[in-house]
Each structure stands twice: as structure tokens, then as C-alpha cells.
């Protein structure tokens, strides 16, 4: 059979397709005790101008700052002041409360769809804290924490979710597909992955203009399989773009575990190695580690030392969205069994350990956040919930396809208004 050796295949086994399978399925008892979690403080911190090569060991490691007692340890400790820490904690709590309220609102029929980021709150919140206010984000649907941290009004978020007249996107986008230029938050796309090369393009533009603002692109573990991931990595390294590329590895993509995206063979951070880009793998439930890594990558990008790929290792604690019931494909208790803990509890523990926080203040914070979210919800609902939308201002539906309304849309608008009885 071989050109070289006709018999060389005699002893070859039958080929076999390997189909990755998560360790636990519904009915199993999840046990993550075999997962090796590197100790906090262990990872070295290269200079931000270091050759990418120096970061490669870190793509197979886990940058962690908070130890089991909530102390910040090791070279990655960003030494954040207590006020900033408290703001981060507050933002994270707000995000969680917000998610709970809005999830409920969807269940009450007030909107069509919602997606939580439960368990992942540290990632967006600490990132926002570590970056500049005018840096630009190209997010996915699980970075609501960026908006909250940057002070985007909760009412506006809710108006978007309700597609009501307070939604500056005129009800055109699915709930939670936020966009706000002012807050450096690019329009979320329903198509996975597209934002990744866009972030690189924005950063390239900033470099072309000799600006000093950098960009950050976000993607999920599952979506790294899209071709856009590769475009982004390629363009970012070729042009040395001032960009941070984040992979939020929450280990699930709807019902598919991260092995289906390649996680059995390499970490997502390791992808950086193949392109010669700096890479970091970070405990995503450790707000200080997130802060430190983003600060490192920002400094690197801002000094023309190149892009960084950061994998935030975390766990999607709840269902994919309101359309999903995860008990159909994974054990119910997995989130609890997962070793890296709850990011809010961990940051709280740290502040308490610092003597800058206590249970009482925490309870008060939760109550405040709850009150704030409820107040916002009340205000947003004054402007209407989704089932009431789509009947007035119908002519707006034809705006913004183009800057000017062409004849066909003019005619269609007239027809549509006639249909609606408005002519």
C-alpha cells in the first residue's frame, strides 16, 4: 500500500474518531478534586515590555492573586486602593442583582430574552476598573459589568431590554444587545465572534492616528472556534495592534463543554503562543488577578509593545440564557462543586481581611443595590415593557437602514403605516 513500504500498514490499528465528552452528565456527582489549581501568588510577572516568549509559561498556568484566606499575594498583586475595591465589589453585586431582576422580568413576560453572567461578574467589572475610561470595548453579551462599572444608567439598560421608547436603539435589537459609544461599548452582535477582528481594527485605527486609546475584544470559549478569532489574532500580531483580546472561558457554550472548542488539548491562552503574541491565563473569579492582568496588558498595548491574549478561566454558573435549561446536559450541582469559588464572595473576603469591609456593610450594599435596581426597573417600566411595544412610532422602523430613506423604503413605510391604520 505504501509507496515506500507495501507492508507498513499491517499492524496499524483501526482509526477512531475521538468525540470529547465532559466528565459529568446529568445524574453524575461532579467531583473536581483532581483539577490542579495553582496557588495564588505563584505565577511570575514579566515586564510589560517583555518578549511574548516570556509569557508563554503563563498560558498554561493560572494567574491568581487572592489566596484561600482572601489575602492578595505575589507579584501580580495590583495593590488596588480600598475605595476602588469597594467600587468593584459594589459593581459586581449590582450586576448580580440586575441579572436576577431581569431574568425574572423575562419570566414574567416583560421581555423576550435575557442572559446572565452569574459567576463571571469579576471579569468585566475588574477589567473596566483597570482600563481607561475612553478605551474601547468590543464585548459579547456577558460583559454587562463593563457598562455598570462605567456608570451607564441601569434604566437605559432596562429600556433596551424592554425595547421601549427609552431604548436609544429604537427597539431594533434583541434584549441585552447593548451599545453605547459614549461609554466605550461597541454594539453587541448576535453573530458570535465578529467583534473580535473589529476590536483589532479599532486598535489599528487608533495606532494609525497616533492616538493613545486602546481597544479590547471579548469572546467566549465556544466562539473561539469561529474564523473571526483567527483573523483577529493574525491581524493583531501582524500589525502589532494595541489591543487586548479576552477569552472568557466559562467552560460551556450552550450545551457544549469547552472540550468541543479544543480545551482538551490546550488552554485558550495557549493559542497566543502559536501567533507569537503575549498570553496570560487568569483566574476569572479573582477580581484582583483580572485587574492585574488587564492592567499589565493595557500598559503593554499602550507602549506599543503589542497585543495580549488573556484567557479568563471561570464557570457559567447558570443557564446559557432564558431559553436554556442546563440540567438537560450537565449535573445540577456543578457550579457549586467548581473549585474557583464565587467572585463576589472572594472579593468580599479580601476586603474583610484588609479590615475595609464587614458583613454589615455588605448586607447594606446588597440592599442598596437591590433598591437601586428596583428603582431603575420601576422607572424603565414606566416607559413600557416589550409586549406593549411595536405599535406606535412604526415609521421609525424604516429609519437608519441608510442615512437617507431611498424611494423603496419610503413606499414601504407608507404601505406599512396604511397596514397599521395610521395613514
Amino acid at each position, binding site marked *: 500500500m505504501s509507496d515506500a513500504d507495501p507492508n507498513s500498514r499491517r499492524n496499524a490499528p483501526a482509526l477512531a474518531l475521538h468525540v470529547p465528552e465532559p466528565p459529568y452528565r446529568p445524574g453524575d456527582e461532579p467531583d473536581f478534586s483532581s483539577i490542579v489549581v495553582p496557588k495564588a501568588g505563584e505565577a511570575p510577572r514579566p515586564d510589560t515590555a517583555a518578549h511574548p516568549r516570556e509569557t508563554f509559561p503563563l498560558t498554561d498556568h493560572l494567574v491568581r492573586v487572592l489566596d484561600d484566606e482572601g489575602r492578595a499575594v505575589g507579584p501580580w498583586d495590583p495593590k488596588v486602593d480600598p475605595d476602588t475595591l469597594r467600587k468593584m465589589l459594589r459593581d459586581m453585586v449590582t450586576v448580580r442583582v440586575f441579572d436576577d431582576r431581569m431574568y425574572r422580568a423575562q419570566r414574567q413576560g416583560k421581555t423576550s430574552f435575557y442572559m446572565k453572567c452569574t459567576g463571571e461578574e469579576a471579569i468585566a467589572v475588574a477589567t473596566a476598573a483597570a482600563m481607561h475610561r475612553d478605551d474601547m470595548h468590543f464585548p459579547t453579551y456577558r460583559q454587562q459589568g463593563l457598562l455598570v462599572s462605567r456608570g451607564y444608567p441601569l434604566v437605559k439598560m432596562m429600556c433596551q431590554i424592554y425595547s421601549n421608547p427609552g431604548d436609544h436603539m429604537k427597539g*431594533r435589537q434583541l434584549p441585552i444587545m447593548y451599545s453605547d459609544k459614549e461609554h466605550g461599548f461597541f454594539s453587541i452582535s448576535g453573530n458570535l465572534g465578529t467583534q473580535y477582528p473589529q476590536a483589532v481594527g479599532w486598535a489599528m485605527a487608533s495606532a494609525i492616528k497616533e492616538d493613545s486609546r486602546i481597544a479590547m475584544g471579548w469572546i467566549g470559549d465556544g466562539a473561539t472556534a469561529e*474564523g473571526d478569532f483567527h483573523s483577529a489574532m493574525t491581524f493583531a500580531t501582524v500589525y502589532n495592534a494595541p489591543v487586548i483580546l479576552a477569552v472568557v472561558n466559562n467552560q460551556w457554550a450552550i*450545551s*457544549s463543554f469547552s472540550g468541543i472548542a479544543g480545551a482538551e488539548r490546550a488552554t485558550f491562552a495557549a493559542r497566543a503562543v502559536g501567533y507569537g503574541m503575549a498570553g496570560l491565563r487568569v483566574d476569572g473569579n479573582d477580581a484582583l488577578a483580572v485587574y492585574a492582568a488587564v492592567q499589565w496588558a493595557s500598559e503593554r498595548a499602550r507602549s506599543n509593545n503589542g497585543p495580549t491574549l488573556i484567557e479568563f478561566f471561570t464557570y457559567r454558573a447558570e443557564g446559557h440564557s432564558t431559553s436554556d435549561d442546563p440540567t438537560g446536559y450537565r449535573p445540577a450541582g456543578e457550579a457549586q462543586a467548581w473549585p474557583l469559588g464565587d467572585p463576589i464572595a472572594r472579593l468580599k473576603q479580601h476586603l474583610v481581611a484588609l479590615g475595609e469591609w464587614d458583613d454589615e456593610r455588605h448586607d447594606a450594599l446588597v440592599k442598596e443595590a437591590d433598591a437601586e435596581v428596583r428603582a431603575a426597573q420601576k422607572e424603565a417600566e414606566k416607559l413600557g415593557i416589550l409586549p406593549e411595544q411595536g405599535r406606535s412610532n412604526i415609521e421609525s422602523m424604516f429609519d437608519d437602514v441608510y442615512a437617507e430613506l431611498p424611494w423603496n423604503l419610503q413606499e414601504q413605510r407608507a404601505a406599512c403605516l396604511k397596514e397599521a391604520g395610521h395613514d
Partner: protein
Amino acid sequence: MAVMNMIQAINSAHKVMMARDPDVVVFGEDVGYFGGVFRATEGLQREFGKTRCFDAPISEGGIVGTAVGMAAYGLKPVIEIQFADYIYPGYDQIVSEVARMRYRTAAEWTMPMVIRTPYGGGIFGGQTHSQSPEALFTHVAGLKVVVPSTPYDAKGLLIAAIEDPDPVVFFEPKRIYNGPFDGHHDRPVTPWAKRAEAEVPDGHYTVPLGKAQVVRQGAELTVLTYGTMVHVALAAVEENGIDAEVIDLRTLVPLDMETIEASVKKTGRCLVVQEATRTSGFASELVTLVQERCFYHLEAPVERVTGWDTPYPHAYEWAYFPGPKRLKFALEKVMAD
């Protein structure tokens, strides 16, 4: 014979074909253990094993690209693109490879595969869970394009598509997975169970590709449509008391021109109904063909009912969707002209 909704019928088609033909493999995002976000592939992995039905990475280009390789090997891949709105990353492989392989190699390599994908609106899915991109495939020589409108047809057409020697893009009208839809979104949904088209044989049967079905006989007007809009059109015709002949095209490419021509020549009037964006939709091809071939029989211009030339707007779903009012006005116009 069993009563099935459209998802169950599609699931059954997979089971029948996987049992009959060991070369049929099924993959796509979330289709394995979980059985797909719409549950169309439920139970396949359990029944046929992980190498016959499995999850794929979120890479529509990779899904189609690897399916090309599998078809080249001799398998018959049946792949799911989770929503038609997400088919574009796989568009190059479909247009440049799948569609042209038989032609460019003079049939040395062929691409028997089915690309299943839920399409269409009416589910408050916003811009990226509502699209009807069929015209982007009807323009591509080498592809067959199928759109069922009932459980019976869905199973029979899907089996025919899997058995077909050519690649088929199989658009599933997700709005009517669970029951037909008359376009009155404010009325309660009727399940398929009440309908004759939900009587689906358990075993193997086919509904041939390339054959339309006259779903309502009529003398005054011919309505050409497919997918979800078949039901909306049927309801509109009844409500407006028009003696229309309604044709469910079922296959867009190759088109059943014979049935269309016979009907339009008989009625002398024609209305084409699509859910998709108006400009350059498949309706335009239908209007063109009808006016080319039936011009001297036409008593009025062929009318189009379509979605508007805008992206699908979440909150304005029912102002966008070509519903009863749009149909009523169009029916009146084409009858009055």
C-alpha cells in the same frame, strides 16, 4: 403512523435514514448529547453512537468544510446550522465548494449532503434569529433549496434530500415547528396535532424534491409561496373570501414550473408571498418567471408580499412580518387590477 409536530417529523427522518444508511452522519452545534437547541436531533447520539451524531465547534465554516471532506470520503453528512442567520461564516464553503464540486470535477467528486437550518421570524428573535436568506442560495447554481411547511412534508422532503445525490439546503420554518401559524399573532397557537398534515408515517417515505403542491384549489388567482407563509396565505385567502389557488412550492430549486404555469394560466392572476426582505428576494425570481412565461395570460401585474427592506426589528416584529393585513391589501389589489 403517528401524530408529529414538525420537529418530531424531522427527528424521525434522521432516525429512519441513520438506521437505513450507515453513511449518514449528523453533526452541528449542540446536536449531540443535548439533541439541538430545537431538539431536532434528540436521541440520535444515544441511538447511533457518538461517531454518528456529535457536537461541533462553533464554526459554521468548519462544519461545512469538514462535511465537504466527509462527502468526498463517501459519507452523507446531514449538518445543522443552528439558525439560518448564522450560516454566513459557512457561505464560502457552501458557494465555492459544496455547490460547484460536481460541476468543476465533471462528477468525479459529488457532494451529497444536507444543510439543515431553521429560518424565519415570528418568534421575537430579533435581527439574528429571524432571517429568511433563501435567495442567497437560490442564486447559486449547484444547490437545491427546500422549504417544507408541514410535518408530513418535512419528513418526506428531508428523507428525499438525504437520499438526493446533490447538496440540499433545507430551510426549516421555525415559527411553525410546533403548529401552523395563520399570521394572527394575537390569537392562540394551534398545535399540529389537530391537523391532517401531522399524521406522519413512522417509517421511510419521501416527498419528491422539485414538486410543488397545490394546497388549495382556486380559479381566480394563484398564490405562490412556501414555508411559514403557506399558512398565512391560506388563512388570508379564506378570510378575504377569494377563490385562490394556493401553491406550496416546497422546493425552490429546482422549481416546479409546470405546476406554477398551469395554475397562473388558468387563473390569470398571481400573488407571490415571501417572508424575506423584499429586494432581490426569491419572490423576484418567481414574478420574473411568471411574467416571462404567462405574460399573455396575466390580467394584472403579479404582486409581491414580502418583508420590508430593513433588518428584522425586534420590537416591530409584527409590523415587519408580512401578515394578514399586508396579504389582504395585496389580494385586493391584484383582484382589482
